């Protein structure tokens, strides 16, 4: 006999197999998910839920596709949390002059409560990357926020009303475009292609008889 647990999904009591994730338990209970379900693999941040074990004080926030049900779980959903993303022209801004602080001045209102970090289902040190952003250390903020899936649980818990995921994303885009070292071999290849350097070679391959190109493929040298 399969082990069952009692859970409360959006306030209603259900008995579900103990092996299921919270998301699967919702489907088992009969919910037809449209909101609050995305990649089902922990990469998209669509399925944040908030729960406490019945009778306890502590609230937990997790991705429902990545968390197993437990006895007494009382589950609520966070399908969409409003953050305040600022728009910018990536070609016109620079990774200097406190640009992140200018676009997101509320980061300086952080009171250091660390609720954001405690709430992160990815285990990121959210408060730390906000601190890096405050100090203009955008590359550090970029790396510290890199695994963010944008579920915005952090923002839902922040007394300073910071939109953390948007701050992290801006820091990463600044890093990718301006701070990371330029890639010379890429620039060189782009110039060659724009110059049409590979057109003749590709024409030849496109027209090559099947047996000839098979031979070429099967005998090609493979980089170690």
């Amino acid at each position, binding site marked *: 006999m399969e082990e069952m647990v009692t859970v409360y999904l959006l306030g209603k009591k259900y008995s579900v197999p103990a092996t299921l994730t919270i998301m699967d338990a919702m489907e088992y209970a*009969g919910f037809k*998910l449209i909101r609050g379900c995305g990649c089902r693999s922990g*990469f998209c941040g669509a399925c944040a839920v908030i729960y406490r074990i019945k009778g306890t004080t502590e609230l937990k926030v997790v991705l429902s596709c990545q968390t197993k049900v437990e006895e007494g779980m009382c589950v609520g959903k966070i399908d969409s949390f409003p953050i305040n993303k600022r728009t910018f022209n990536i070609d016109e801004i620079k990774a200097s002059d406190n640009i992140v602080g200018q676009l997101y001045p509320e980061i300086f209102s952080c009171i250091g409560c660390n609720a954001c970090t405690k709430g992160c289902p990815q285990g990121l040190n959210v408060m730390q990357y906000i601190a890096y952003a405050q100090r203009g250390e955008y590359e550090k903020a970029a790396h510290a926020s890199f695994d963010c899936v944008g579920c915005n649980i952090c923002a839902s818990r922040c007394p300073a009303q910071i939109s953390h995921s948007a701050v992290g*994303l801006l820091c990463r885009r600044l890093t990718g475009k301006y701070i990371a*070292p330029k890639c010379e*071999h890429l620039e060189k290849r782009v110039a060659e292609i*724009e110059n049409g350097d590979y057109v003749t070679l590709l024409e030849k391959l496109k027209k090559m008889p099947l047996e000839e*190109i098979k031979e070429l493929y099967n005998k090609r*040298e493979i*980089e170690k």
Partner: protein
Amino acid sequence: MSAFTEDMLKSMAKVEATRAQRLHATIERFTAEEKDALLKEFHPDYSAKGFKVLEVGPNKGQKVPTELAALLEGKSRLEGVKLDLERIDYDVDVLVIGGGGAGASAALEAQRGGASVLVVTKLRMGDANTMMAEGGIQAADKANDSPATHYLDAFGGGHYKNIPELLEELVTKGPLAIDWLSKLGVMFDKEEDGTMVTTHGGGTSRKRMHACADYTGAEIMRVLRDEVVNRGIPVLEFAPAIELLLDEEGKCAGAVLLDYDSNEYKVVRAKTVIMATGGAGRLHYQGFPTSNHYGATADGLVMAYRAGAPLIYADAIQYHPTGVAYPAQIYGALVTEKVRSIGAQLVNAEGEIFMHPLETRDVAAASIIRECTVRGKGVKALDGVALWLDTPLIEMLHGEGTIAKRIPGMLRMYAKFGIDLRKEPILIYPTLHYQNGGILIDKNAETKIPGLFVAGEAVGGIHGTNRLMGNSLLDIIVFGRIAGTKAAEAAKATRLGKLSLEHVKAYAAEEKEAGVSGELSPKLLPVYTHGRDAR
């Protein structure tokens, strides 16, 4: 307590016992003849079961997966619905259907081309297979590589069935795509001097796999989505398209949407349409689990087919060799090929190597299935059998900390269920991963229906009958951009006539004539009950 069962632990001990001697072992690759034989005998595409010959539409007489046939030969959601097509809810130059990587790239380029653009998507912007592509994106941008070498790798890997002019676009515009993404701020893994960190994928002859840790697709998707917002492109979420609209001359002229919140139909008139609806993993062909997104139900193929656009290689499905076979909570999820790129080996229940870890995906999947079936060398896992992916090798080869740095997503996914893949190997089995075929396009991304463009996984022909790792993230960008640019250009010269759904009626009549009746389609979302009905 270990997360593994006792039987698994016994087999794992054998894997551990042979690890040191396997570490630097030279492993032969299969010959061309061995590969052909493996595929014919063990790849699900070659199974006689699981396919149906289509009886209606442009590909009448050709076989497609049974589950897809039921939708292609299905019933329109608008059958019997009275809809006033004169009442237009949205009127734009370019309509983009789908909010994944291809749709976002297309929208950005269409707007840059001067068009008014509307993106409509079934779930949220960015809810797509792009977000879940972990391993990397190919592009021939290093000195020892060239677009021609990339062409050869993809052509051989695709069984010489790739459409040459499409493949030429893919490989030639590859480095340009990386450049475009870098300039938008995508953080590729680089050495300190700016050199891209690149690895092999299955079937590559040069190390041209660029990555952003194992969040490559997620990193690309979140940057593209952010840029769509920055550019003020309107996005309508939770509003899947359910039929294309044509005009009296047969030009594509928009789509009918189903608003998920109000349950109302919305009419979009558009001078050109870009179909970017992605794949079909959630149709679970032949009962396989899938690594795909919740919304991957082949909607675009169904709508385009009904409107008269031919498909190509719709019977060629990619089973990713390494899907999660255990634990149950993440069954079917993707274990990125990058795990093998950086040193993990495939090992059977006896602790033996049985293949080179970087064969092309179809060959690798077939080889794993052979090992688990006729050879009986699988490990019992959940309802089936599985093989080991020996992940502790990675840090023996490249040093401590490599896994956290290069595949943090994998480390985290397993850790949540009590497995530390730095110390223990993991159990895998092939999972339904990618639709190699799709809607036929030309090199401008346009279909046989004037004004209908396609980009991303919904396209067929670029990859032949087997796509290489890292060529999908590349194709969504390359063909997304082409589709956006060309659709915006075409919109300028287009004068639409009266909107019509006559093609849907004509198709239904053809179905009636042929005596076929499938399911309500497009499917939009799968239904899961996790065994509730069996109780």
